């Protein structure tokens, strides 16, 4: 399909503005011409209908959660409730300026204050900041808090953050960004943190341990209390990566597992739309002893008035302008109120049931590296198909496209060869799962009987496999005439 620039034609327009009703002066009489550009930026010139069709056509070349099953592991592609889009669009939310006087935004502050309270209860923490724009920024905030906590205690040699080899890439990247050295701890044969290697890393240089629980293999670490105890005894703090929190809503709480800091991904666990890659929101919750380090401002309440508290001398500072991705917070707030305590527990139960159902129904066809109950996602390996038929996990993923399914997350976690990480979420019906299972089984058979069919997939998409190597070697990153 054409680019917007290719359908552009001088003289067409898709906007209307009222006539300027104040005295007009030539631009260069108000601003010295040395500051002015000679030529306008070459933006499109199209009619309104052209523009509407262009974006509509583009959208038709995308797969969304409304289009079909989207079991992208670790991303929790659950249904995005439509009513949440409606309430987030109320004028009282979209049309308020971040620097309005506090008394004119009491509703917004109240919503944030209540969301902090509900997230604290759900995770067993004491206080949340809603400022981080995404999970990775939440991690960064958490790590900054860890650093300042130790420094504030004059404990200056704690330079290391421990991260499991199964962790999301953002964990080590965030630790590095916060100025820590990253130490990797191995997983054991059960896919859990290897207690012996963890023990060997303990020392007075350990600042903290980042753990996703359930981890990226979809497994709950049964040793969690011993782990917390060990890290705390060594003087470190426990950081909970909430990417997989969907599995434990109403079942178990990071705060009760010994974690000191938690981040949540509202765009995963709390149903806010992923937006093609964002915006998300990555609120960070802490236990009381760390509250004073949270970013400024914190939403507080005095009497029946809500206010923004900037007077927090030990705060790590600000990581983002204003107060967070407020529009995302509204949607998450609406979601929690729609679900209630029972509803949230049902989310976890059904997410876990659905993942186990898929795991059980596919494990005779695909290699299951760790054969035990999983939580909200299951991780297979495509090595049987690769070794026997030369069909890779990538091929299987591409073949799934022909059936209208978004493939699972592939080649992650890194500790599983040819990994396929399947997260069905609680939203899907048994019928959808059965259909997916039957397609996956069919692809396994195709891999044996007609491997070329799988290796040359997809066959039905608007475009076939793309040459990614050339894209990276000779980057074309913008349109030129």
């Amino acid at each position, binding site marked *: 399909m054409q680019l917007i620039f290719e359908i552009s034609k001088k003289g067409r327009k898709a906007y209307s503005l009222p006539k300027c009703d104040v005295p007009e002066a030539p631009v260069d009489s108000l601003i010295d011409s040395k500051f002015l550009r000679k030529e306008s930026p070459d933006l499109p010139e199209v009619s309104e209908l052209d523009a509407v069709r262009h974006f509509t056509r583009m959208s038709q070349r995308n797969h969304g959660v409304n289009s079909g099953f989207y079991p992208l592991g670790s991303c929790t592609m659950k249904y995005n409730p439509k009513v949440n889009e409606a309430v987030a669009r*109320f004028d009282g939310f979209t049309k308020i300026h971040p620097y309005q006087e506090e008394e004119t935004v009491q509703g917004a502050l109240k919503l944030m204050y209540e969301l902090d309270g509900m997230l604290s209860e759900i995770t067993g923490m004491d206080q949340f900041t809603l400022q981080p724009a995404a999970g990775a920024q939440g991690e960064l905030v958490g790590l900054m808090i860890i650093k300042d906590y130790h420094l504030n205690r004059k404990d200056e040699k704690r330079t290391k953050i421990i991260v499991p080899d199964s962790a999301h890439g953002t964990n080590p990247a965030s630790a590095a960004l916060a100025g820590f050295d990253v130490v990797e701890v191995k997983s054991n044969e059960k896919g859990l943190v290897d207690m012996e290697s963890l023990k060997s890393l303990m020392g007075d240089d350990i600042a903290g341990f980042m753990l996703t629980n359930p981890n990226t293999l979809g497994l709950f670490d049964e040793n969690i209390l011993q782990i917390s105890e060990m890290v705390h005894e060594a003087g470190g703090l426990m950081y909970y990566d909430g990417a997989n929190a969907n599995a434990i809503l109403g079942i178990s709480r990071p705060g009760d597992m010994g974690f000191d800091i938690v981040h949540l991904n509202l765009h995963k666990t709390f149903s806010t739309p*992923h937006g093609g890659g964002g915006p998300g929101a990555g609120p960070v919750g802490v236990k009381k002893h760390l509250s004073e380090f949270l970013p400024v401002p914190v939403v507080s309440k005095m009497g029946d008035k809500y206010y923004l508290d900037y007077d927090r001398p030990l705060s790590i500072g600000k990581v983002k302008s204003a107060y967070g991705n407020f529009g995302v917070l509204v949607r998450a707030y*609406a979601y929690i109120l729609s679900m209630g305590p029972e509803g949230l527990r049902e989310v976890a139960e059904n997410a876990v049931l659905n993942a*186990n159902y898929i795991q059980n129904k596919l494990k005779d066809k695909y290699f299951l590296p760790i054969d035990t*109950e999983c939580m909200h996602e299951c991780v297979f390996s495509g090595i049987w198909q690769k070794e026997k038929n030369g069909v890779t996990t990538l091929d299987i993923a591409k073949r799934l496209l022909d059936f209208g399914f978004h493939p699972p997350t592939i080649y992650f976690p890194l500790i599983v060869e040819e990994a396929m990480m399947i997260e069905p979420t609680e939203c899907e019906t048994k019928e959808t799962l059965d259909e997916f299972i039957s397609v996956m089984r069919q692809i396994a058979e195709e891999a044996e009987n007609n491997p070329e069919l799988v290796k040359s997939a997809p066959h039905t998409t608007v475009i076939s496999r793309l040459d990614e190597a050339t894209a990276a070697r000779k980057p074309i*990153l913008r349109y030129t005439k």
Partner: protein
Amino acid sequence: MTRYIGNTNEDREQMLREIGYENISSLFKSVPDSVLLRKKLDIPEALSEMELVKSIKSTSKENKNTDEYVCFLGAGAYDHYTPSPIDQLILRQEFYTSYTPYQPEISQGTLQAIFEYQTMISELTGLPVSNASMYDGASALAEAALMSCETTKRKEVLIASTVHPESRQVLYTYAKYRNITVKELAYENGQVSLDDLKSKINKDTAAVIVQNPNFFGIIEDVELISEIAHENKSLLTVSADPISLSILKSPGEMGADIAVGEGQSLGNPLNFGGPYLGFMAVTEKLMRKMPGRVVGQTTDKDGRRGFVLTLQTREQHIRRERATSNICTNQALNALQATMYLTFMGKEGLREVAEQCLNKSHYTYNELIKTGKFRPLFTAPFFKEFVVISEEPVSLLNEKLLKNNIIGGYKIEKDYPHLKNGYLIAVTEKRTREEIDTFVRKAGE
């Protein structure tokens, strides 16, 4: 079961039976008893859709919004006009319910939109390489500073005190943990002091960072700053208002190595501060040092044009602790909204918006000065925002305006204590002469 859950109770039982489990709790046996939650979460009971809408609507009404009140507040977030097709298109589910385009064959919509976004940002900034978006203008600026330090192997950053206070605060936070020193440059007549820049720049200076138009709304002499920065082999970052770039010289043309900025103005609602988007564009030379996602053009095996995520070896999911940044989820939908805005407004529309902002802000400025209750502070040229000194304290002034359904300007004293009664006023194309006249009359009373 709630409406957002797929299985019925019978489904659950059947599924459990088929996979050999007695009940749901047997699936959770890896969760030790000691950490099982033994109570019901203490949060409000579930609301039906009707109750939910009613309750949240009433909360939203506790806010005073810019439809009911005429807004002269800016300071980095602006009440611009957005063409109506945009919100309908942004609600195309294929855009907003999808995620990062990891599977290009079924994500060409998002990928092409990002490619178009990158092209538009490149056009506006005059720099060839744009990423797919950052969290906001402030964090984009902080990342630009880190990138400059990484590239030059230097550890000091000079930032103009005329840069948005929150951007500076975010920079301080990011810098502190990387042992980067941040120093501020004084201003003269509302513009960066070149003498101060010359006296502070040295062989440790990785980056010089300015904002244009700056926090006071004033246009900086970026070309002179660029010369001084580059003579010292420091990198220059310019944080720009994208609306202004339809008439002002682009950062690239003035010598910037990195352009960043807050993209909210481009069709994104005020939303109490977010979600917005940060944009970032760099020179060819810095391409592989840049944080964030990038989309590139390529072909499929049948020779058709297509788009993919590219240069991914910079990113956290490949490079882990050696990545150029930790960013993963960005502000894709907001960037799409910006792309739509730039498409609908187009070449002529964006220029017209900028010219109306320019004329209306100058009209407002002149009228305010005429009242005798406000005096000029700076004489340097400004774009859509300006500072005056009010006779009465800004808080009292704004209180009075609020009673007249006006959201007044920004109390600049908060960030610049020596600018007593300093008042920062933004005037966008949305303001009519009548609204401006009322504002001036009430403010001058």
